[in-house]
Structure formats: structure tokens, C-alpha cells
């Protein structure tokens, strides 16, 4: 994102991973932010994370004024995300005030104002020196009170009061028919409005976030997928949008001279991405494993995503041709992550990758096979995700290798994954099996290698007990 941009006004971290990038630095400091969305889209959690991370990471105490859930319920609900509200309360870093409005026990007669709410909020803020405030959701007042015209002006006054008080506030609002919030709160909070959305596409739930408005600041305008998992909310910037990554000219090898020699420079560029296509049983995984082991021999950690085989199965199978993955796993140089593609949505896969990359800091990432992900999303989504993935790997100068199962031998360009990946990949190796005189003959062909020459013909090879061997005539 744009880091060198001049800061127009002070901003404060959102506490939501990825959102600071999209908002070019966070929420406007000391101003109210409106978070709207339909029921169950994650507003309360979003707001709570803003507070908790503010306390833990920025040392900014926070007040959570809840109009819906009780303090005890809130503590319980966010415990699964590792937020210990009770502990933060004990440390006087957090104050939760539950404003209970019981319509049945309240009568209204004559004029009144919400001064008591202001006093309560003020007291809570001052008692712990809060810098962050959440009002979740102030619209509940409308169901509790008759005079909505009066209430509106009071809410307007409340937002102004928050500004004057110098706190950064999140106000949540329920999505209304044809408007962002049911009672038009967006009219009053005009600095920053964020919309959360939750929809089901092809039976897989996806959450999305959009910055509707951010006055005085540039911001990403796309819909960004976001996730709620055991670490809370994270937003994925769609792409870094810039093609400005470094291009190392060092070379890396497959640790397999037969393959390396097919490239004019006896290897492929470090930090490049390689696609291996082929129909079933053409030794894609074997070649990928060579690549992984080569990286391990350079003492560069490898992250291997296996969407079809469990780690144990992969290790067992490759041992039969003399490839010892287990000792690399034991040496912590190889990390195999197996999961079913349909277990989660595409974004979730990408996030898992993100997280494992942050944790494991691999120099080489293998996705075997990337075509499995096709089953999870439609082609435009898959492509968008792959672009994001490639960008992420490129920026980190990670050697990437993807295998892809092709269906149509005659014309693999018609294959969705191939179409999506091949133009993005720097190197492309195609493997095939051809029936020759009642015998399957394996062939390898380099289709492209960006920035270097390569052997243009098909080479025959076989997989023996000792591994990959070219068949020389």
C-alpha cells in the first residue's frame, strides 16, 4: 500500500490485522467511526478487537458501552478468541458498561435528555483514562424510547461530545432497508464508515468489508474478504497492486541436474514462481518434492501445502524412490500442511498460508496441487486469490512452486487453473504420459522460463527406485 503518503491527520491503529493497510494507517484518531452491517456479521467482535488490541498493543485503555449484551455475556463470547476481558478489567484497562433499557419498566412524560448517558460514559472514560470507546449499538435506544426526533438530536450531540472528549470511538449500527443503518446514524458519523457483509456463495460463507467513506483520507475501495478465526478478525488486502518487487538474479536448482540442465542458466531464478502441469500420475508431486528437498539442502525452510495427501502418506510414498522427507521434517526445514480444499473458503486458505508463512518464514512454498482450490470457488475468485497469493510470495522473495492437475491433455490452455496461473507463473513445466507401443512413456517439456533460454523439446524420463532419470537415446 501507499506508505510514503503524507499523513493528513493523526490516525490510530485499528487492531484488525490488515485493516491498517487498507485505511492507510488506521482509524481517524479521536473521531467516531461507524461500523454497520446486518445481524451476525461480526460488528461486536470487530469493536471488541479494536478495544482489546488497543489495550494490549497501544496501551490505550478502552470503554465498551454495551446496549445489548451484558458484561458477563461479552466476556464469555470473546473468550474463545483469547480475549480475557475479566483480566483487563482487573488491570483497570477496560471498563464494560451494560446499559440496559427495559421498555416495560420505563414511562416517559415530558422533556428529558440523555445527559445521564454522557455522565456515565464520561465517568467510565475518566476512571481508567480511556482513549478508545465502543458504543454497541446505540440504536437500541430507539426501541426503548418513544420520542425518536428528540433522540436523534441527542445522538448527534453524543457523537460531537465524543469528538470533544478526544477519544477514538466505534459506533456500531444495524444494517437498514435501503440505508446503511436502520436509524440513519451514518448522517451523524461522517468521518469514517465501514460496512461489514456476510454472504453465502456456493455454500461457503464469506465475510466482506468495505470502507464506504473515509473523509480526508485515501483508502482502498474494494470489498475485502475478512475472516473470524481463533485469532479474531483479519482482513486480507486484495492485492498489493504494485509490481515493484525485487527480482534477484541468483539461481536455484532442483537438485536434479537432469532438470536444471534444461534451463539455459542451469537452474531457475531465486524468488520466481514455477508451475508444473500434467494429468494424473505424471510425477508432479515427485518433481515438487525434489524442489522442496533442494531448498532443504540449501538450509532454506520449505512450506509444503498438500491438498491431496496427508504428511505421512507423502513421506511414505516418496521414500520409495529414495527421497527422504522425514529427516527434513524432523530438522524443522520442511513443514507439511495437509488439508482438504473444501474444508474452508479460498480466503481462509490464503489466510492459513499467510499465518504459516509468518510463523515458519519459509524460503520455498509448494502448493500441491493448486487445481484443488478450483473446487472451492468460481474462476474469477480463484484467479483473484492466486494473484494475491503470488504477490505475497513475490514480495517475500519466496520460491513458489505450484502443481496443477490438467484434465484435457490436448489443450491444457482451456483448463481454468492453468489459464489463471500460467500467465502469472515465471516458469512452466509440463509433464505428460504418452502411450507408446503399449507402454506409458513419461515426457517433460519446459513451456516457459522468464528471463532465460530453455530446452525446447520434449525429454523422456522415468521414475525408478533411485528417483527421476532422463531417458537418453
Amino acid at each position, binding site marked *: 500500500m501507499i506508505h510514503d503518503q503524507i499523513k493528513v491527520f493523526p490516525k490510530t491503529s485499528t487492531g484488525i490485522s490488515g485493516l491498517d493497510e487498507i485505511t492507510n494507517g488506521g482509524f481517524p484518531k479521536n473521531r467516531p467511526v461507524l461500523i454497520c452491517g446486518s445481524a451476525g456479521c461480526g460488528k461486536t467482535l470487530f469493536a471488541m478487537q479494536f478495544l482489546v488490541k488497543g489495550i494490549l498493543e497501544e496501551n490505550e485503555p478502552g470503554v465498551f458501552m454495551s446496549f445489548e449484551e451484558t458484561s458477563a455475556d461479552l466476556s464469555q463470547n470473546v473468550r474463545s478468541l483469547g480475549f480475557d476481558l475479566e483480566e483487563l478489567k482487573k488491570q483497570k484497562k477496560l471498563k464494560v*458498561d451494560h446499559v440496559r433499557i427495559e421498555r416495560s*419498566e*420505563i*414511562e416517559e412524560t*415530558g422533556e*428529558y435528555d440523555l445527559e*445521564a448517558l454522557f455522565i*456515565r460514559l464520561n*465517568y467510565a472514560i475518566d476512571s481508567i483514562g480511556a482513549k478508545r470507546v465502543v458504543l454497541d449499538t446505540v440504536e437500541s435506544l430507539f426501541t426503548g424510547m418513544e420520542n425518536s426526533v428528540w433522540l436523534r438530536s441527542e445522538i448527534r450531540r453524543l457523537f460531537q461530545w465524543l469528538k470533544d472528549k478526544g477519544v477514538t470511538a466505534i459506533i456500531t449500527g444495524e444494517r437498514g432497508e435501503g440505508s446503511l443503518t436502520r436509524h440513519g446514524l451514518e448522517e451523524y458519523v461522517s468521518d469514517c464508515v465501514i460496512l461489514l457483509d456476510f454472504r453465502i456463495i456456493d455454500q461457503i460463507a464469506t465475510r466482506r468489508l468495505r470502507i464506504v467513506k473515509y473523509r480526508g483520507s485515501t483508502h482502498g475501495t474494494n470489498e475485502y474478504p475478512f475472516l473470524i478465526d481463533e485469532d479474531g478478525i483479519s482482513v486480507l488486502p486484495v492485492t498489493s497492486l504494485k509490481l515493484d518487487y525485487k527480482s534477484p538474479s541468483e539461481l536455484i536448482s532442483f537438485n536434479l541436474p537432469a532438470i536444471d540442465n534444461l534451463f539455459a542458466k542451469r537452474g531457475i531464478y531465486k524468488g520466481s514462481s514455477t508451475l508444473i502441469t500434467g494429468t494424473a500420475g505424471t510425477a508432479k508431486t515427485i518433481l515438487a518434492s525434489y524442489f522442496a528437498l533442494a531448498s532443504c539442502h540449501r538450509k532454506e525452510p520449505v512450506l509444503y501445502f498438500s491438498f491431496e495427501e496427508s504428511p505421512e502418506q507423502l513421506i511414505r510414498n516418496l521414500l520409495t524412490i529414495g527421497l527422504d522427507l522425514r529427516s527434513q521434517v524432523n530438522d524443522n526445514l520442511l513443514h507439511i500442511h495437509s488439508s482438504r480444499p473444501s474444508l474452508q473458503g479460498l480466503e481462509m486458505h490464503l489466510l492459513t498460508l499467510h499465518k504459516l508463512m509468518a510463523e515458519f518464514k519459509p524460503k520455498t512454498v509448494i502448493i500441491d496441487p493448486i487445481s484443488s482450490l478450483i473446487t472451492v470457488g468460481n474462476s474469477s475468485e480463484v484467479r483473484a486469490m492466486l494473484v494475491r497469493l503470488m504477490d505475497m510470495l513475490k514480495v517475500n522473495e519466496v520460491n513458489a512452486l505450484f502443481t496443477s492437475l490438467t484434465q484435457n491433455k490436448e489443450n491444457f490452455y482451456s483448463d481454468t487453473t492453468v489459464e489463471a496461473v500460467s500467465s502469472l507463473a515465471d516458469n512452466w513445466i509440463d509433464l505428460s504420459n504418452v502411450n507408446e507401443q503399449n507402454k506409458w512413456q513419461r515426457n517433460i517439456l519446459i513451456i516457459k522460463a522468464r528471463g532465460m533460454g530453455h530446452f525446447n523439446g520434449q525429454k523422456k524420463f522415468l521414475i525408478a527406485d533411485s528417483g527421476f532419470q532422463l531417458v537418453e537415446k
Partner: protein
Amino acid sequence: MVKTEKFELRLYIAGQTPKSVTALQNITKYCKEHLNDNYTIEVIDLLKQPQLAEGDQIFAIPTLVRKFPEPLRKIIGDLSNEERVLVGLNIRPLGNKKGVY
């Protein structure tokens, strides 16, 4: 005549605003008229005691709380509508027996 339970009322205000003053005048008047001396009114100024707002779940000013007899009842506003206040507090105008729920 049956001895009725004593009414414990609490009026929350925030400084001497016109609304608060009106509310206090109103409730004092209704109590004198309908409850004889059978009541107490405690006035709490939240500007002086902000910590008390949370306990009684006060969000509007002025708010009149009937602490006793139970159940707890709240009336928000300057209490200008006598009938509504009496109904809200469940006070029968003097001359009638105290109403029951």
C-alpha cells in the same frame, strides 16, 4: 384505613437544569397531594455522584425511580403529565385505596 407502604422515590438529575427543577417540583406536588407523608424523595445529582448512574441503569435526565414498593419502575422526563406519572408509579389519586397489580 389500611396503612399503606411507604414510597421510596429517587430522582436523578444533572445539575439544576430547568427540566430537573420542573421534575422535582412536579413530583413533590403529586406526592403531597396523593401520598400524604407516606413517601421519601431522594435527589441524586449525577454531576456530583456520577458513579451512581450505572447501578440504577440511568441514561436519561431527569429520571424518577420508584425503589419501593417493588417492582422497580422508572419515569423519564420532567414529569409534567400528572396522570402518566401516577399510573407509572401505580399511585391511586387520594381518596381511593392503593391499587394492586
